[in-house]
């Protein structure tokens, strides 16, 4: 068992995304809260009620959580109604089935449902327990990319309507951003930034958050409109600045050229690099260069350029495409 120190006191009255890389401790956090794993020490309190610590260790079945598992963990031998009714303690569940649009599936076994339907059944089952807290572990990762967007939006509105505090764990910034307006980023068992999705995009607190959110994050020293980058090279800004700064560039502001940059363009910043990896990102292609710079270009452009891993390219962006934040000197 790995060791985590996790100090967090979250006040959430709605959905909060807990996002971070694999192995950061996100799922562990949910399992600890639900009582499925036991922390070596610490304290868990939910809604003023002590669940763990000081000699208290409430067993999982007595903690009022609604847990939605990554693969949904629906009982394959029970139909939808029985699945939802499992934790309902005898309360009728028809209203809930109706509300989540799964009433017509009541007699079906989970094996015959689509990914989106399974997720709604899993949510209904969790809600039927009348939880004080909803815990969702990677709720979109079991779905194919085509349905992720719509199911995510559905999930977001169900969570909002439930009015329950919900922790939604995700290793994908984009999934998390669809589901919850507020996000906490967890790195190696520690929350490194908490805020709205916009805040995270605009001013990432750590290089990881920047990379995770997909914002480019170049550090350097500014003198006037010129920033000498720590990694070498220079960036021209739109407004003057001074001292240690982080230059943030949205990936869609970055254009790519193979070979030498065209001298006639309006972009004044050019950074040379090699394609480290590239992959589809919605209808776009995300290209990561070896300097850490990420560009988002259309599929068409990527195909036209015949872009492949290892290609030498020049990344260009306009001075107006940059945002600058001051940072403490290294």
């Amino acid at each position, binding site marked *: 068992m790995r060791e985590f120190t996790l100090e967090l006191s979250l006040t959430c009255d709605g959905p909060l995304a807990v996002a971070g890389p694999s192995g950061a401790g996100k799922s562990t956090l949910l399992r600890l809260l639900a009582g499925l794993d036991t922390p070596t020490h610490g304290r868990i309190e939910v809604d003023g009620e002590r669940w763990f610590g000081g000699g208290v260790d409430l067993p999982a079945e007595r*903690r009022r959580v609604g847990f939605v598992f990554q693969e949904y*963990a629906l009982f394959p031998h029970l139909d939808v109604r029985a699945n939802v009714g*499992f*934790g309902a303690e005898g309360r009728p569940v028809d209203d809930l089935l109706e509300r989540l649009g799964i009433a017509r599936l009541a007699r079906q076994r989970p094996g015959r449902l689509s990914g989106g339907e399974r997720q709604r059944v899993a949510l209904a089952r969790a809600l039927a*327990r009348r939880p004080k807290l909803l815990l969702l572990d990677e709720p979109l990762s079991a779905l194919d990319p085509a349905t992720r967007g719509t199911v995510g939006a559905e999930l977001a509105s169900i969570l909002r309507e439930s009015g329950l505090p919900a922790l939604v764990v995700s290793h994908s910034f984009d999934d998390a951003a669809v589901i919850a307006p507020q996000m906490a980023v967890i790195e190696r068992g520690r929350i490194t930034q908490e805020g709205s999705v916009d805040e995270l995009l605009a001013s990432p607190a750590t290089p990881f958050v920047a990379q995770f959110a997909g914002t480019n994050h170049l550090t350097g020293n500014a003198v006037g409109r010129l920033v000498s980058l720590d990694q070498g090279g220079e960036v021209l800004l739109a407004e003057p600045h001074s001292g240690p700064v982080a230059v943030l560039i949205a990936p869609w502001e970055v254009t790519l050229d193979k070979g030498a940059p065209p001298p006639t363009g309006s972009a004044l910043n050019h950074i040379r690099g090699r394609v480290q990896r590239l992959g589809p990102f919605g209808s776009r292609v995300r290209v990561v260069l070896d300097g850490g710079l990420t560009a988002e270009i259309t599929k068409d452009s990527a195909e036209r350029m015949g872009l492949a891993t290892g290609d030498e390219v020049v990344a260009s962006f306009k001075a107006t495409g940059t945002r600058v934040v001051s940072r403490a000197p290294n």
Partner: protein
Amino acid sequence: MALVAMVVLGTPIAHLIALRRFPGRDALLTAFELPLVLPPAVAGIGLLMAFGRRGLLGDELDALGLQIPYTKLAVVMAMAFVASPLFIRQAVAAFDALDRDLLAAARTLGAGPARTFWRVAVPLARGGLGAGAALAWARALGEFGATIIFAGSLSGVTRTAPIEIYLGISENLDAGLATAAVLIAVSAVILFSVKLLVRRRASRSVLL
């Protein structure tokens, strides 16, 4: 009756062995598997040493007015002792193959360990449990060595089919052959059913 005893006692034990990690788990599993590799006659002697009049528990049983060897109870015990590893091995494999998230889900939905066991673990493992029970039953049916030593061969009391056959071939060959034919048929039907059952459930449990 031996089957009922095996299933009722064996299922929770297998569940425990499959899903918990505790010190001595391997030793426990070995103890339950031991009868599988013992010669049945040795198993019979073992039972006699434990429960016989001059056995380990002989005095205690005597005090209670119980005498086990050479009774129907002895037949049941001998059968259960020799055949139970088949059931337990199969049941452990069936429980081990369960998706742990399903058991965790039941817990988060307010089901304590007992309800999780009855409503989730047992129904999901029933294919493997059924296959194990059928195999164990087939083995119990053919049990000879431990039975004849621990229970003897009292006509109408402890004379099982295999013992009938053994005595039959020395006295009346035809009757012996007839009983043998019935046993072969019953065993074949059981084994075949197990195969069908396992295939239908696509169970991951091991068939010995």
